[in-house]
């Protein structure tokens, strides 16, 4: 396969190239997904626009309000090892550290992961449970959207052609919030999850659950937020968690594949949601 390779130095240059080559152009961040898709012949771009030389897309740092900004070109490994990310939420660094192997994590980027929209990936459920927003730029301007609105189907996002993810913004975490990321790997340590669960939870002063967000990976076409479970838990004591967890089975849409049958995944979603809640209510 042949293609023209572009390596712009600024975001403006990258956006101009995207506009110039239109549908014939494909962005490449770390390349861990793009190169595989190209080798399999599933992607045949005439122009590959690499984002690696654009400094403004990097960086991981606290925001002034106590949140966290992750540049789109930050690698998984950089997030995993970032002191700021760990101080923000150890569950976040856990989720990034759960991806594949260290070789992959050294190459794969946060923005590339989100744009790839693989529903079995580890970071998106955790970012969603932490209520992240994604900043996007095009030559016409910028916008930001809740991360839940980014992935719309298997390997499909709501991004328009000409848009580039520039950063992920995580809001400050309310005091008293607990977070966890659990990944069920029954075959080998190096695999996609059979099911994964990211959860955040905060108690009200009276001991009831004030707020919780629960997001599952690998059990539907996108990460799935278990809203019915969340609704059943809000304002309730922890003792209600067991019943609420059962609701997750009807919120997900798993498929039979090499990592388990749909029936097994449905049951595992219940088990692992329960385990995640046990961790954040302990």
């Amino acid at each position, binding site marked *: 396969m042949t293609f023209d390779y572009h390596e712009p130095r600024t975001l403006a240059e990258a956006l101009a190239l995207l506009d110039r080559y239109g549908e014939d152009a494909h962005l490449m961040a770390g390349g861990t997904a793009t190169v595989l898709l190209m080798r399999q012949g599933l992607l045949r771009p005439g122009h590959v626009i690499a984002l690696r030389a654009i400094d403004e897309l990097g960086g991981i740092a606290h925001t002034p309000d106590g949140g966290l900004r992750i540049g789109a070109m930050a690698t998984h490994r950089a997030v995993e090892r970032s002191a700021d990310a760990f101080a923000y939420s150890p569950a976040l660094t856990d989720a990034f550290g759960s991806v594949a192997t260290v070789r992959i994590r050294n190459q794969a980027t946060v923005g590339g992961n989100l744009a790839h929209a693989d529903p079995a990936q580890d970071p998106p459920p955790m970012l969603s449970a932490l209520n992240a927003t994604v900043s996007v730029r095009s030559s016409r301007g910028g916008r930001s959207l809740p991360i839940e609105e980014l992935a719309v189907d298997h390997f499909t996002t709501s991004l328009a052609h000409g848009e580039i993810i520039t950063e992920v913004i995580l809001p400050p975490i309310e005091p008293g919030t607990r977070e966890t990321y659990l990944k069920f790997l*029954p075959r080998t*340590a190096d695999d996609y999850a059979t099911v994964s669960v990211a959860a955040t939870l905060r108690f009200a002063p009276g001991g009831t659950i004030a707020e919780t967000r629960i997001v599952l990976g690998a059990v539907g076409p996108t990460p799935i937020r278990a809203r019915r479970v969340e609704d059943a838990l809000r304002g309730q004591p922890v003792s209600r968690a067991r019943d609420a967890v059962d609701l997750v089975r009807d919120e997900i849409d798993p498929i039979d594949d090499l990592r*388990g049958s749909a029936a097994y995944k449905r049951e595992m979603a219940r088990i692992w949601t329960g385990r995640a809640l046990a961790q954040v209510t302990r």
Partner: protein
Amino acid sequence: MPGPAGYDRAVTGVVERSASILDQPEYRVEGSAKVTGAARYAADVAMPGMLHAAYVTSPYPHARIGSVDVSAARKLPGVRAVLTGADTKPGRLGRRLQDWPILCWDRVLFIGDRVAAIAADTARVAEEAARLVEVEYEELPSILDTDAALAAGVPVLHPDAATYVFLGGTRAERPHPNVQGHAVHVHGDVEAGFRASHKVYEHSFSVPRTHQAYIEPRATLVWLDGETVRVVTTNKAPFALRQHMSVALGIPEERIVVDAGYIGGDFGGKGLSIDEFVLYYLARATGRPVRALTRYADDLQATNTRHAATITLRTGVDAEGRILAHTSRVVFDGGAYAAGKPVMTLMPGDAMLTLAGYRVPAARVEATTVYTNQVPAGHARAPGQPQNAFAAESHIDLIARDLGIDPLEFRERNIVRHGDVDVTGQPWHGTDGPAMLARLRTASSYGPSLARPRQVNWWGWGVALGVRHVGRGRAAMVLRKLASGRVELRTGVSDQGGGAHTLFQRIIAAELGIPPGRVAVSRGTTDAVLSDPGVGGSRVTPVQGSAALDAARMLKAKLAELGRTIDDAGEMEVTGEAAQETHEASMYAYVLRLTVDRETGSLKINDATLVADVGTVINPVALRGQLEGGFIFGLGQAVMEELRVEDGRVVTANLGDYKLPTIADAPPLRIELITDHPGPGPFGAKSVGELANPAVGAAVANAVQDACGARVMSLPVTAEKIWAELRKGSA
């Protein structure tokens, strides 16, 4: 303990004289070349003017080929040749039975079967041309499992079998035209044994296809050099390949030169080659060198996998749990062609070795390999054994538990002792089984199973044992004494990663009493060295290693005759030969401890102990690597590996879906070596390459039952299968 007659002389004295070298950890002779990237693998070889091959393959498991239109492909700029089955007909390839068409001309028998081949200036153009070839197929009913293949009135997949070449003998009679190979063994009075039994048990097991999962995909380069056909290949048995090509292509062996250098992993899979034959036709058609580099997906979908199998075992025991009689029926799915199997029976090498390692006074063992419209099956590390060992060692455990006898104790009562008849009907003279199990019991701290509280995570013991023959065959190599006080061994063995060249170096150094650094080992092409049987069948240490030792002894004798030392003698040359024809077997056994999560069925292996009878150790680092690697290889097949096929199509077509264990999956493994029972190899060595992998699946399944009561009767032992069994139990 005395070894078999004839070996004592080889063992005594020599080991003591050479102990200092053999006890040192070895440096691999090829290590620096591999680490620095200087090692040249087949895919690294390029020739001026070289063309690149691509294939047109069948999308159907079984179809009649109508028309093949290559006109558009021929017109594509850069395409130099397009061949179809009409150009290679009736050429077929194979290691024993040549039943695999070089290119298909009338029917295709599996998804991936080749219909046309292209040589072009670049691989991209060749692939583009392959897409332009239009093939009309008439789909035929496909046979996707062995039961269907053996039914009455089914299509015969190889109606012209009588015309196929069978190398080195006559093909045995077959009970059904869709059978590849079939054999029955009987000894003792089986019916009387069952009548005398206190209890009779029957269990059925199934094992899926798996892949050898070497890291280097196959690569082949062929060109014509005048009258000579030159071949660069990843095949691990270059002389055998030369013979197969000679027969299939009608070219005298001496006009074929095979160059098999470094091989990037084998695990039994690199004995079959399929590209060399068609590349010869492409090279002849174009007058240019032609190379085929397969992608990993091609290796997973269209070479020789490990056979899937269904195995039914029936065993009668007396009231004390002693085995009195045994029958087994083993049916292997051989896929579309038997070409990958080198043995006379056209079955995996140890197809008949059910219930290995036990005293079996009477047995009837029947094994069959069957043609289906699936990816062809061939040899993989310890062929036939992982299937049989999973079944047998699960069966033994089930019997022990039903009788209320501890599974290790049951094995202690039944393990074969010297002079006992085992399942092969032969008196046992290998490893001292009771001593091995005693060692295992102590080293693993095996204890009685505890009462089982129904908590989420609970652990269990799993025991399994196995038997593997020491390799047999003949080999020869030349040892040259150089003027500088150095020697050079010239061998036809291609090192596929097992450490063969280092082994030869150390054997010669030990025998001559010189530092290993003064022994060079050079590997030659088939026109430059003596004929060699290749790597496989646990052969290299006992057979080729013995030839290297013989060469060193010949040189020593010659020096003594001349009254010279290695330092003051001139150049000379000797030929070492070895014929290792004795049947010798070694045993291994493991105990592992694992924990099962009762809610999810997932398991974690906490630790494992392996006891292996290895004889004299020559390469201590490589030996440990073979045992550890073998165990982890077995672990992969135990808990995760399955070449999943749906409607004849391999759906695990990459290593992201076909999962292999990583080091993070490997449990702590304690290894205990038995070295005091010498084998027929150099200095009393045995074979270890296929000693540790076969029975891990059974050990895992046995430990799972011990931990949580769930019994999984098929490999791999997955979390979902355990979960499903636990649900059945609680329903």
